[in-house]
């Protein structure tokens, strides 16, 4: 199981929880499980999210493996100038 930290304005979709637990071994599975278990997250996931794994930010990387003790943080999709 992976612990996923959720940013504040998405917690309406996770019953107020700042951290949720899903069964996933990579980012693709993680996003699929989050959408299934917390349908309120789906609009944001479809608009785009980034994921931080042990401090490193990934914008699109479905098959990045997640270890059981990894720190996983859901973040908005990054854009720059």
């Amino acid at each position: 199981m992976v612990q996923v930290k959720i940013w504040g304005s998405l917690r309406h979709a996770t019953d107020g929880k700042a951290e949720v637990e899903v069964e996933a071994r990579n980012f693709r599975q993680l996003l699929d499980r989050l959408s299934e278990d917390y349908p309120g997250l789906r609009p944001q996931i479809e608009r785009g999210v980034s994921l931080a794994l042990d401090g490193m930010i990934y914008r699109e990387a479905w098959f990045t493996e997640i270890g059981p003790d990894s720190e996983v943080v859901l973040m908005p999709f990054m854009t720059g100038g």
Partner: protein
Amino acid sequence: MALDLHAKRVFKQVGTRPPRPDGVDKVTGRAMFGADATAPGMLFARVLRSPHAHAVIKSIDAADALALKGVKAVVTSDDFGLPEDMFARDVQDNCLARGKALYHGHGVAAVAAISDAVAKQALKLIKVDYKVLPHVTDVDEAMKPGAPVVQEGRSEENVGAGLSQNVTTYCEFGHGDLKAGFAKADKIIERSFKTAATHQGYIEPHACLASVTSDGKADLWCCTQGQFAVRTVCAEIMGMEASQLRVTASEIGGGFGGKTTVFIEPIALALSRKTGRPVKMVMSREEVFKATGPTVSSSMDVKIGMTKDGRITAGEAKLRYQGGAFPTGTVTMGAQSAFAAYDLEAVRTYGWNVMTNRPKEAAYRAPGAPMAIFAVESVVDEFCQELGLDPLDVRLKNAAKKGTKSAYGPTFDEIGLVATLEAATAHPHYKAPLGPNQGRGLSCGFWFNFGGNTCVSLNINTDGTVGITEGNPDIGGSRASISLMAAEELGIAYDKVRTIIADTNSLGYNDITDGSRVTFSVGLATIEAARNAIRIMCARAAKIWGIDEDAVVWEDGAAKPSGPNAGDFEPMTLADIAAVSAETGGPIAGHHEVNADGAGVSFGVHLADVEVDPETGATKVLRYTVFQDAGRAVHPDYVEGQMQGGAVQGIGWALNEEYIYNDEGKLQNAGFLDYRVPVASDLPNIDTVILEIPNPGHPYGVRGVGETPIVPPLAALANAVSRAVGVRMTELPMSPPKLLKALSGKG
């Protein structure tokens, strides 16, 4: 792609300062910018723009314009379909208004004619019947429930009730117990701040040449930060397949985020399709101000608690950003960045994006971060004044470092904030004496940086030279940096390598030149492409020597037997192997395609000294020093150039630049005479100190450097000016009228 284990190696090419490859062309006028494109039989296009801030377009009558000799076509939104993709639809509707003009200067119709003069004349003959609507340009006003609604139905699902439909996004970040944090504080300061919308101020106006053929193929030449992104959005709008639209990026005269989207290209394509002739469009400077994408303006509240000895116990920020007449997401980056420089137990940021009757915002270097960090760093500075604390000591005491849980969520890996703060502390600038009416300010800055989709092809020519093809327009010197990294990896001289930028049909997809990504991502792909080419060259040498491939190593630009057991052969240089490539299996090339991650966040610290004339309110910047972690400075001249350029743009933002609207919502200063950017004579030399804390996510340790330098100047200047005049300045720009008003209120 992780930092090489041999990262402590001595670089031979990386870190040197060869002359820029585009320098001669640019100073002699040979370089081809967007407006330099021509084609036989081309037409010239112009756009009719709304004189109103907000108005229903009841009808458009172009009959008289079409009857004018030399006019070949007119297009309006009726000439376009309705893209399913909302991003493309917004881009299209921003090029030419659909049903409603949403801001002063919004395109309404466009004409193509045999000359620019005829096109301009034709615009005067187009009759538009408007019904003028109430408008709103201020972010706080636009959030109120009774405000004029710019667009309906664009709010995301988590925007709370009781706000205008103009509010499109709400976000919240942070951790810890704010109430408990503030309870631990010896002092709490709450302040409200405002920043004006500013323009990137690139010297080259938007320009393009479109040519659509009768069989549906098209070519588009334009100045852009990303030809592939232009292809994606224009193909969607025009209903074309990507392969049929070839986009070529010109040399670019600055972008800074403002050329990450399109404003005229779909219009030129539509006019070319309609006329069957090439169509050229070049924006005037007035159009650039009115109808391209400035940054957001903001209204912000910050509350911070601190102990007497300078430890921050809690921080809270509320950020309201207006991004013009379409939804944007910029406030999410501001809300994540606001407290990024600090190691905090309790922090919370809230953000709202708001639509107004202003031009659609575009990115501007570190979008969203400079204004949020201005507000936070101003309050931190006020604490230092009130509690008699040293500003750098306070930053060091609270600095984020490896292991800090960042204010936006993830735990930091290796970062360079403490190193930049220590460098600033040790620098003579920090201890230099100040005179009357002078003040010194400082600020930390932060940006995420990212990687993204990247392709590189590296070809070994038979004469021993190397050609590199990459897909990102070179804004800040990337061709030189890419050539340096290839030369380093291959072990050949820098002047044996030439890097060019490909069109969209010559290479796989590349993300835009943005996010401080190019030297990081394209560099990473170049190193890997070079390693692929080296593997082939070693294999060719092995064949020639009749030994196993794994018995050959690449050292100092040559294949060598890996040890005495491999045999006694003279090394074969890259040129030796290239010369016989036809005889040994054919052309040699390396390539690499990747969606790069691991860019590594970036921090900087700026020190500014100013003097304020109490009689005129004019501010003179006396001394300015930038400290920044560059990971590895591949070409230090360009790194310094980014640091200096960001500082100067931030100085303009802090002191003078702003979009000024009148009561009718009309932009009053759409030109460089009235919208004043700093020029060389306004500025001291911007001193730079590059720190090199290797990025663990890049083989050479490279970090992006292009965006962080625009983040600290707003607060560094505000803190310096506030100390010089003895009044806390909370509104940007700190133009002379505002400073005189502040000084008169001081009593």
